[in-house]
């Protein structure tokens, strides 16, 4: 584009040089001298391969960008690979943890069942023990009542006997008892 513009200007140059005071291609015409120098300068630039150097530098930059892009793409792929591996691992861990949770739940349920059963058994045992205690307490109470009835009866009988007993009868009884004892002891 720029080169085209330059060419166009150069082609139109003689026409543009206003009010020419003489022939254009003359050393007396400063613009012509400048044009020669300009061409020499451009020639030196071309000879020194400056345009090629500039183009090379630009191409190098493009290559660098391409390389950077490629590198970025590789890095991205690598990162994606790592990500997917971690996702896989995470999935595995998830499954494992699911399994662990399931087994733990199972165990807990079993333990709960066991505990429930144990509890029922212990309740039954305690119930039985309590019943035993009640029964024994009942028999104890019955016995106590009976004992008390006997003692009351004995006391009553004693009272009755004491009331009916006379001195003589008592003495006779004592004597009889002594006789009993001596008869038994001998």
């Amino acid at each position, binding site marked *: 584009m720029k080169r085209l513009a330059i060419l166009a200007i150069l082609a139109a140059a003689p026409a543009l040089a206003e009010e020419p005071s003489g022939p254009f291609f003359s*050393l*007396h015409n400063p*613009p012509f001298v*400048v044009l020669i*120098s*300009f061409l*020499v300068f451009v020639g030196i630039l071309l000879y020194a391969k400056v345009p090629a150097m500039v183009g090379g530098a630009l191409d190098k930059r*493009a290559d660098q*960008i391409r390389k950077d892009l490629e590198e970025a793409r590789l890095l991205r792929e690598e990162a994606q690979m790592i990500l997917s591996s971690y996702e896989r691992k995470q999935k595995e861990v998830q499954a494992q943890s699911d399994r662990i949770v399931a087994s733990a739940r199972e165990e807990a349920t079993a333990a709960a069942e066991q505990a429930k059963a144990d509890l029922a058994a212990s309740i039954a045992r305690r119930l039985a023990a309590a019943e035993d205690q009640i029964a024994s307490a009942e028999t104890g109470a019955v016995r106590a009542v009976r004992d008390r009835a006997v003692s009351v009866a004995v006391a009553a009988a004693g009272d009755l006997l004491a009331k009916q007993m006379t001195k003589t009868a008592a003495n006779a009884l004592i004597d009889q008892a002594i006789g009993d004892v001596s008869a038994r002891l001998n």
Partner: protein
Amino acid sequence: MANGEAQSGLTLHPLEQFGVHPLFGGHEVHWYTITNQTLWLAIGVLCVFALFVVAANARALVPGRGQNAAELIYSFIHNMVRDVTGEDALPYFPFILTLFLFVFFANTLSLIPMSFAVTSHVAVTGILAITVFLSVTLLGFFKHGTHFLDLFWVRSAPFPMRFVLAPIELISYFVRPVSHSIRLAGNMMAGHAVIEVFAGFATILVISPISIIAITAMYGLEVLVAVVQAYIFTILTCVYLKDAMHPSH
């Protein structure tokens, strides 16, 4: 002008090349007259268009040569704005890039023989510099209000010194657009004038080879000057913009 004299002896008209002439006949230049300056301004704009719109149009991930060059210039100026002015000035980057591209292409295109050196006219660079000056000043007041005047009130100096420094700072601030524009125009004009003077010496046949070699050498220098002056114009704009963004010393 040089009629007749040119044939006889050494006559130098190094400033003739800077004349503005109507392209399509007539001698008067009105505001609407299409002149050689109009033509070369347009060519400069077309070059920018060619590089940044046509060549970079593919927007390829791996750029071709044209897009590559455009990207290089773009990132160069982008880095310059960020480094010199700061991250917060990046909204003004398009303006600075436009300025650089215009000056750069105007400078380099003026090296073509018989072209017209657009940026050798203070009228052109002055408009650019005044645009920069006005927009930077307005931006400073818009962003910081009266705090922008801190730029002239050097708080880091001892108190009595500030009264001395304030007028100096003020004068140097208002001289900015002058130096900004004359630096560019002067450099461009001087180079072209020197080349033209050397070309005038070529009238003497013995000297003409030396003259041509000298102009060729001048061309090498002028390529450098064209690029460096575009760079300087842009970086100064960045520096001025920095003052507007952060006016306190």
